[in-house]
């Protein structure tokens, strides 16, 4: 039986990672809510966020101002998303009547491959690490790396800002309306295409934030977004697609399940526990914890 300290350490580590996975899941589920398509290139925007953090910290800002790098990376990824959406996604939505979401989803797979290949060409297959000046935190027997504590805090702030934006701004209101009914919001005179662009930008910016925050923890390399993206998808299956509160809870559940199973069973199958949870949940609640039954005719 593991010691109480070890147990506590696992819980803390699991919750911290869960919060960061939640940021990814929020990005995925948000884009889906508005655009009704799955963005398979989220991991690559995570990767871009981490590379930008590395570049800003090492070549522009210095280690002392690493936190500014997170902000600049997030904004840069947002702008990149806003540029890419009309260029590669929107053409798939040619008509208002026929929305070829399947095509758009396939395009995001192509985008994933293109961005990943570009990273290999531009940066090579090497690992990089934007350093921070954060000390290790010690609370009794509990040791928490400074980078992880800050990444956790950053994730909470990003989630709060995202929630505040949706809840208290006009754009947030419009986006929530678009999530409910895309046709209705157009009848109210709102430019849905601009909203799509904004939603895509915000969604990928969330991935960029996660990438920038986790860059000093998990290193920077062309495929570093793969695991985090997979966790994001696991969370939205657990939570139910399109549910933002569900994504918050799903992240914590996934983090805790992986942590507890690692300590009580074997840490060697850490990733398998999440999948087992997903499979079990699909059997019991195929629409997720917070999802709703749907019918298509």
């Amino acid at each position, binding site marked *: 039986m593991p010691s109480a300290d070890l147990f506590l350490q696992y819980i803390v580590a699991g919750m911290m990672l869960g919060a960061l996975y939640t940021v990814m899941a929020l990005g995925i589920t948000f884009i889906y809510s508005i655009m009704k398509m799955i963005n398979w290139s989220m991991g690559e925007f995570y990767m871009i966020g981490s590379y930008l953090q590395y570049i800003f910290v090492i070549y522009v800002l210095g280690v002392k101002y690493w936190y500014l790098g997170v902000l600049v990376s997030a904004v840069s990824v947002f702008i990149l998303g806003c540029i890419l959406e009309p260029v590669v996604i929107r053409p798939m939505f040619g008509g208002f009547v026929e929305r070829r979401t399947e095509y758009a989803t396939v395009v995001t797979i192509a985008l994933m491959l293109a961005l990943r290949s570009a990273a290999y060409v531009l940066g090579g297959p090497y690992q990089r690490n934007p350093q921070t000046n954060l000390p290790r935190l010690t609370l009794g027997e509990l040791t928490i790396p400074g980078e992880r504590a800050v990444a956790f805090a950053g994730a909470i702030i990003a989630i709060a800002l995202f929630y505040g934006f949706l809840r208290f701004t006009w754009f947030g209101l419009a986006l929530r309306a678009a999530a409910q009914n895309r046709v209705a919001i157009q009848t109210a005179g709102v430019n849905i295409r601009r909203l799509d662009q904004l939603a895509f930008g915000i969604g990928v910016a969330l991935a960029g934030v996660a990438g920038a925050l986790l860059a000093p923890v*998990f290193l920077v390399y062309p495929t570093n977004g793969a695991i*985090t993206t997979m966790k994001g998808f696991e969370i939205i299956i657990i939570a139910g*697609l399109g549910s933002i509160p569900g994504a918050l809870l799903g992240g914590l559940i996934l983090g805790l399940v992986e942590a507890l199973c690692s300590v009580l069973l074997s840490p060697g199958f850490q990733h398998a526990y999440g999948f087992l949870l997903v499979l079990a949940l699909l059997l019991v609640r195929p629409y997720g914890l917070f999802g709703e039954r749907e019918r298509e005719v």
Partner: protein
Amino acid sequence: MKFLRVLAALLLIALAAGCAGRQGAASPTTAPQATPIPTATTVSMAATSTATAAPTAAPSPTTASKPAPSGEPVRIGVLTPLSPPGDAAAGQLIVRGAELGVKYVNEVMGGVLDGRPIEIVVEDDQGTPEQGVAGYRRLVDEKRVVAVVGQFHSAVNLAVNEIAKDVGVPVFSTQASAKDITAKHYPIAFRTHLIDPIRVEGWLDFIQQQGYTRVALVAEDTDYGIGLIEETKRQIKERGLQVELREFVVDRRSTDLTPQLLQVRDFKPDLVINVAVGQLAYLMVQQAYDIGLFPDTPMLASYDFPVRPEFWKNLGEKGNGLYFIAYYHPRQSLTPIGEWFVKAYEQAYNEPPVYSALSAFGGIVVLAQALNQAGKADPQALIAALENGTFESWYGKVTFPRAEGPYWHQATPSLLILHYTEPQQDWRQAEVVYEYQPSR
């Protein structure tokens, strides 16, 4: 609901694809700076020197220069990972070494077989067995190579050998260490790299030397990692060592090793052996530092990734105190051939050479000598010459006898354990704490 099911199915497929990708697990290496290399390239170095006949053994680089080779070139294949999921960095180093091998053979040795030049044909195996097999077939059927060097991933090398044993063109393992590569005793299987039993022998000697009794072995879930766990357990038992070994297996795709490392810390070992490759190896050092495990508890890395230029950039002071296995050290005495290579490499790339390039270079030079001994560019004659001859390589004389077990067709370089004693230390200045000279 239907959508979520589809999504779950896609995730499971992705997981399965990830597992499949893991079979190409690496034997470790070092990384050069990025130099894009075409998938299939023919490289032929022009000879520049002049003199008399081609030798049957590698001459000292200081001897008289040879005439410029002419005639139909003899082709040697370089089958190595140059793109993901293979270790492309290793492949690039291997190609560098092979290119300098061609330069040495053509310029210093005067070519092979009475003055014919050699050239290499490069194929990317992508670190996957299927691409490795396809690449081998292309090299043999289309490019008519007489031998293939450059194998890095054990899983790829094992798959290629299964085809090569029927085709008959020899395959040189440049840096794949699984013992089955040579233990199957295929006539075409040759190796110029360490095998895992020797790696384990080396670190068990080191453990004894340091007086460690509790050892945690943290290994990735690949043929490399699992093979080393099994071999370590076997040798501890065989040697009757009083060492309590506990193994921790980690998913190769993991980015967070904290759960495993917390358990390692709870075990309170005297030494942690880091048996991971690529970014996982870095993550293990960093995350062990972050939870207060390393450097309070020493860590030994199972291969020479700390000699890579990016090591200190990635880890900063967190890398200080690390022990690591290496196969070459600049203070090691080299043959004149090895010294020629070091100078040529530094001149070409403005950085010190690392083992992957040396091993590939050695393979080409040995093959050239064997071709001269065979007297013709025929794979079967080449195999016979390799089995019966003695050849000069970068660290000494090498042979490829039909020996027992994994020592079949095996030429083994030395194994060193180096120790970083201060942050940002040049690996060439690292403390040499252990040196293993193989007896076979």
